[in-house]
């Protein structure tokens, strides 16, 4: 009888660990799709920004072309893949440069369509940052669950998610901005 009770208790315990791991795995997937949704929003906004900017930014054609190329690259890469992360990190940096460059064009800066587009863009950027924070938090929770016994017994179930990497600020973004470069 005692053996049966112990067996039932252990089975319930293992089952709860198993469900915790599955929930954590699903949370990572949900977080990743959250980033995807926000990135899609940004991809949709970029052409609008560039179309408006193109009319005013005579000397930034190269930057605008590079942003367009990177947008295509980022859109084509699978979400969460190293290629997608690298492309988006570079895109973050270039769009940062773009925002600084806009300051050089007072007519563009005060254009109502541009103001509206920039506002939408900034909101999307904040949502992307929030989605990435959620993703990092969900991944951290999953790793803790999967690496600590008895969660480690079921870790193989979340193998693909465990191989994911955290979103970190790129080295490029960490560098101080050389404002003089953009404010010629």
């Amino acid at each position, binding site marked *: 009888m005692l053996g049966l009770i112990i067996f039932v208790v252990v089975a319930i315990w293992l089952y709860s660990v198993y469900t915790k791991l599955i929930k954590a795995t699903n949370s990572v997937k949900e977080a990743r799709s959250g980033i995807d949704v926000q990135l899609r929003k940004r991809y949709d906004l970029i052409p609008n920004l560039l179309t408006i900017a193109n009319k005013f930014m005579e000397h930034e054609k190269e930057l605008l072309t590079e942003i367009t190329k990177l947008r295509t690259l980022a859109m084509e890469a699978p979400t969460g893949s190293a290629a997608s992360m690298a492309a988006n990190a570079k895109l973050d940096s270039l769009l940062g440069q773009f925002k600084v460059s806009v300051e050089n064009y007072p007519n563009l800066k005060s254009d109502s369509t541009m103001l509206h587009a920039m506002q939408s863009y900034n909101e999307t950027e904040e949502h992307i940052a*929030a989605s990435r924070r959620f993703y990092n938090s969900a991944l951290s929770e999953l790793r803790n669950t999967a690496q600590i016994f008895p969660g480690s017994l079921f870790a193989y179930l979340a193998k693909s998610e465990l191989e994911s990497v955290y979103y970190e600020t790129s080295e490029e973004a960490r560098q101080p901005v050389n404002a003089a470069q953009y404010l010629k």
Partner: protein
Amino acid sequence: MSQNFADIENFTQFFRRKIEPKLHSFEKQRKRTLLLCNITLVIGVILQLFFLFAFFTSSNSNSNSIELLFAPAVITGVIHTFIKKKYTKKVKAKIFNAIFSFLGDFTYIEKNEYIVDRSKYEQIPMIGKFNREPDIDDYIRGTYKNLPIEIEELYLRYVYHSNKHQHERTVFDGLLVTVPQLKTTNATIITANRKFHDIEQLKDEVKLEDVEYQKIYKTSSDNQIEARYILTPKLMEKLKSLNSKGITTALCFIRGDIYIGIKTGKDMFEPSITKPATDISGYKDIINQLKETLQIIDILQLEKKAIL
């Protein structure tokens, strides 16, 4: 009207010019109120001592007599509060609008001038379940840094019965500040200091990456991403700084409004009955109480969309 706080020296001049003349007529009434309060206290203490003496010397003390043991203290407290409130209500009606105008565009609304909307509090998730009528002691409305603002001193209770006894639980006791939410979201987000009332009832916890913040505040939301969109690292830092100043708050972002609950632990905006009616010190405290409440908006920078 200027939204900047003038210093307290200016308040002294303002008080002497605009408030003091209105207060002279209250001095006689204040003295009478104080006398009545003191008489009530003395009678209450004598009765309480008599009850205690009777209880400990009587041979047939039972559970019913224990319940009645502190009845004089309770009744004295109720009568004392009633007499005091009768006086302070008149003072507030006469001078609070003028007092608060020192800090800008603020109006003190008297109790009989507004309807208490119980459903408003029921729809704020950071406020737990209550089953007694909301008690709003003070209600101030105004504009601060171009934001319409409402400040209510609110008391909510939940009464329940167990083992044939009636128990009372305080659900909310403090200030409830309402300001519009500039950074929009469709989600409901609550972040409450762990020392705030009833935080156990908050479900769908959001585990934020700031460990120190997590220790101080409990956050809950129906949307993990939107919660982080609103609770940026910057806002979390500001909320931590509020806690380090000893201010216990809870914030709720819902339907385009921000509700800020502030645990005060004392009756706010109350004129003194022990000091002369024209004594400025009590009114300086009242001004400081409103100033400190508004400073929470400053610290959290709720008037700026980008910072939040």
